[in-house]
Structures are given as structure tokens and as C-alpha cells.
């Protein structure tokens, strides 16, 4: 496109007034803002001593857990919807025929690689029986890669750990799963 093209709009900047050309009023404005922030309350959280405030644990996406039903059995029915929905391919399920009469399959092993997980919450969205959920635990640390691959027992133990503080999201949000 030529610079002489009539389709080009040449924009002229708004003219500065005397105050703008003298800089000082604008400078004082900037300095005032700076000084104001110098004394304003700080937003930093001193992490290990102080815990950050989580706005709403129901929509927070932290460490996963596998929920248990009333009988203490894993709720998962090994339908693979979460593994299919997962964009990071971090969920690995091995299904087996269920030992219980109310479902066909159950997960013989259910593994989430927390290092690959991007905490998008797709698995939680996909689950038809609200078995996999993201808790509001946010400090996920480990000393080895193996330690960060959570198997079924560990995911169930996360449920035991967090169920008192965070009841199942589906119940909390008022849409209990249809039987």
C-alpha cells in the first residue's frame, strides 16, 4: 500500500497544552501516584508462614482427588471420559470388571501425572459420576518425578484428607448426580 493511498487515515496526536509542554504538572501527577503506592497496603503473601486466601474453593483448581461413595468405594466407573477429555494426556486408567453389582466396571488402577497436568479442570467437567474433582490444595511438592505420579490410593487419600473441609462439589453446587 502506498503512503498516498486515500484509504490511509493519518491521525494527528492531540496537542498538549502549556502544562503538558512544561512537563512539571504531569510529573507531579506521576510522582504523587508513586508516593501513594509507596505507603499503600501490600498485596504480597509471605507464603509458607501465611496462606493465600482462596476466593471460592468450589471453583479453585488444585490437586486432584478421587471421591468415594457412601459405602467407601471409589465412585469412578472407569468410563474413560476424563482421560479422553484431558488435553495433557495425564490420566491413565486400567479398567476391570466391577466386583460390585451396581456397575459394570471399576478402575483397577487410576493414575494422574501431576507434573503433566495443566489444571484445566476438563476431567472434572467430563466426569458423569463426579468421581474426579480438583481440590483447593495448592502447594503440590515432591522430591522425585515418581512421587508426583498419583495413583488410585493416593488420590483416594486426598479425598479422605480434604472431605471434611471441602464436601463434594456436585452436592455443594446443588446438582446432585441423578441415580
Amino acid at each position: 500500500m502506498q503512503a498516498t493511498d486515500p484509504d490511509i487515515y493519518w491521525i494527528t496526536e492531540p496537542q498538549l497544552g502549556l502544562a503538558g509542554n512544561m512537563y512539571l504538572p504531569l510529573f507531579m501527577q506521576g510522582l504523587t501516584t508513586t508516593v501513594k503506592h509507596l505507603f499503600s497496603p501490600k498485596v504480597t503473601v509471605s507464603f509458607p508462614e501465611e496462606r493465600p486466601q482462596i476466593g471460592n474453593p468450589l471453583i479453585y483448581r488444585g490437586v486432584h482427588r478421587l471421591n468415594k461413595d457412601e459405602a467407601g468405594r471409589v465412585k469412578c466407573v472407569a468410563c474413560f471420559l476424563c482421560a479422553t477429555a484431558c488435553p495433557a494426556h495425564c490420566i491413565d486408567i486400567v479398567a476391570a470388571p466391577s466386583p460390585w453389582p451396581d456397575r459394570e466396571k471399576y478402575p483397577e488402577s487410576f493414575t494422574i501425572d501431576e507434573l503433566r497436568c495443566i489444571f484445566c479442570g476438563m476431567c472434572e467437567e467430563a466426569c458423569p459420576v463426579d468421581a474426579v474433582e480438583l481440590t483447593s490444595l495448592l502447594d503440590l511438592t515432591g522430591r522425585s518425578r515418581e512421587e508426583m505420579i498419583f495413583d488410585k490410593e493416593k488420590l483416594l487419600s486426598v479425598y479422605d484428607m480434604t472431605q471434611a473441609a471441602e464436601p463434594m462439589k456436585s452436592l455443594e453446587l446443588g446438582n446432585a448426580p441423578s441415580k
Partner: protein
Amino acid sequence: MSPDLIAALVKIALLIGGLMTAAAYLVLLERWIAAWVQDRKGPNRVGIPLTDIKLFGLGQPLADGLKFIFKEEYTPAHVDKALFVLAPLVILAAALAIFAVIPFGSVVPDFDIWGYKFTGDAVNLVVAPGVDVGLIYVFALSSIAVYGVILGGWSSNNKYSFIGGLRSSAQLIAYEIPMGLGILGIVLSTGSLRLDAIIGSQAQSGWWNAMTQPLGLLVFTVAAFAEAARLPFDLPEAEQELIGGYHTEYAGMKLILFLIAEFLHMITAALLIVILFFGGWHFWGLTGADDQVTWLGALLRIFVLVTKFMLVVLFFMLVRWSWPRFRFDQLMSLAWKVMLPLGLLNLATMAILVELEANGTLPVGSQGTFALVGWGVMLVGWIGSALVAPLQTDNRPRPGAGGLLEPERLLA
């Protein structure tokens, strides 16, 4: 060894130790202020090692220094090695040598401890007392800093370093002139190039140069910001554009030499502003005006000087977060089209006033008239420059401006 030599060596040792510590702790202060301005808390963890005592993070400079010492001293293969090593040494040596003539207070009385006299006379709180060309010495050495920057940028053999070095040389050379013009007024009115004499005359009359020559203060402060390469004039090392400017290729101890030299430039600039324009160690009713001081008076003078210095440094650090960086053409037009004429105006005003005082038209010591005229001239000059030559903010090529976008040039 003569007592004078011993005194000088002790002063040099104290000065270098003190300056290095001051630079380290000013880095911590700068980080704190940066954090507070951005609503963060800043470094507050490093305290005494191996304990849980944190001391508001006062151990941070030590940790920073250790980190730099233990870092790999990497020299890229493509650099001009001799100059590459020389550059940080030049810049640091020049930055440190400036402090030889800067008075950190006035004089302290003789050390009279249990009847033992140290030198027999009062000790002047400056490494090289009585240097008659003090200001010229400061200027000469601060110009040498440009060599360090250019050598570093050029010997690195790297585009970013080179552009940083080039920008820096242009900027530092351009702002030397307004800086000198800002000072010339003071030299005229004081009649001396000695820094202690300049403080002395301000103390004697009770009028700080900031009150009588506000235009000089304005020009000098802006130029000092540019010379110290502080924001909004930090083009030599604009991180966002040039990675790090002239010290992109440096690592480890060589890098920290550059960084310390940069902080020393800021310390020099702040001290010069205090000494030249804000009366140095003088404060009305608190410190006397003559050279006869008691120990208490000497300590008070040091305290006053350090307080003023810290306030100026605080201003330097706050300005960093208040203003965006200038574009290069704005930087240059500010130097040549605004600061240079304003500096000349200040110099002319002072020359006329001093001459009027000398030939008896004005009574001697009429500082009030100086101040009145000074403020008037500053307002007129400033408003005039804003009206006559407003700073161009829009530098885009456009048709009708006689540039590359003229139709005949486009069709040719």
C-alpha cells in the same frame, strides 16, 4: 610516613569501604522502594545465615555479592579480550576516584586522645583537601566513565552491546554540556571551583544555591539523571530493548563492577546536587558557618549532609517508577533544544548579576535579589521554551512534512 599520609590512607580505606557498603545497601533500598511502589514487600528474608533471624532482609546485599563472586566468570570467545577486561576497571576506577575531592562534612577537630595529638590540626573530611580545581576534576573523571561504557559495548562484539554503547556515548556527551552550564552559574557566584568553598559560601550567606539559581538546579538535576543513566534516561541499558545494553556480555565480577560503578554515579550525582545546590553540611541554626567546630558540630554536619543525600537518593529512586523512558530523539532534543538554552540563560543571568554586584550597582550580599531574579528567569525560560519549542512527541513519517513520505519521492 608523615601523619598527613597516614591520615590520607585511613581516609581512602574508610571511603572505599564505606562506598562499597553504601552501594550495596542502596541496591537493597532501591529494591525495597521498587517493591513498595509496586505494592509488594520486597526482599525481607535474608538475615543471619544458619539462624531464623531475618532482620528485615538486611543480609540481602551480602547474599547478592556472594552470588556474583561465585558465578562463573564467563568471557565469550568473540570479544576483544584486553578491552573487555579493561572496560569495567576504567569505569569503576573513574567512579571511585571522583570521591577524592568530595567533602563528606566539613572538618573534625584534632584527635586529642589522652593527650596524644594525631596531626596537630583539624582533619578535613575529604581525601584530597584543598584541591583548587575540584569541580573540573569531578567533571573530567565523570567523562572518563563514557570510555568504560563505549569500550565495554564495542569490545563485546555484539549488536545489543554496541547499540547500547553508541546510545550511551551520544547521551553522555550531549548531557555533559547542560551539566557544565548548570554548574557555571555557581562557579561564577562563588568565585571558586573548590567544593568546600562552594559549601562555605552557601553556609556563610545562609542562601542555598537552589534558592538563588533554581534554573541551574533544574538543568543540573536533569543532566545528572542522564549522566547517571537513571530512568527516565536509562537508554544505554534499556532492558526491554537492549537486553542489558553495553554490559550484555558481562558476567560475574566484571558485571558487578559495572553495576557498582553505576550506583556510584548515582551517589556522586546526589552528593553533587546536595553540595552544589542544597548547602552541603549547612542547615540554619543547627550547624555553624565557619571552620571552627566542636566534635558535636562536626557530627551534626555529617548527619545533615547524609540526611540531605538520602532525600535526594530517595527522589532518584521514586522518579524511576514515576516516569516512562524517553525516546532517543526526545532525549536528544531535550538536551540540545531545551536544556542547553536554559543553561545558557542561567549562566547569562548569573553573569549579569555577579557583574552588577562587582561594579557596585547591587550591594554586596544581595542574595534576595539574586533569588528573585533567578526564580523569575526560570519561570520565563521554562514557559518560553514550552511555548516556542515544545518537545516533539510524534515522530511518525507523514505526508506533507517533507520527509520520506512525499508523493514525488514515493513515485520516484
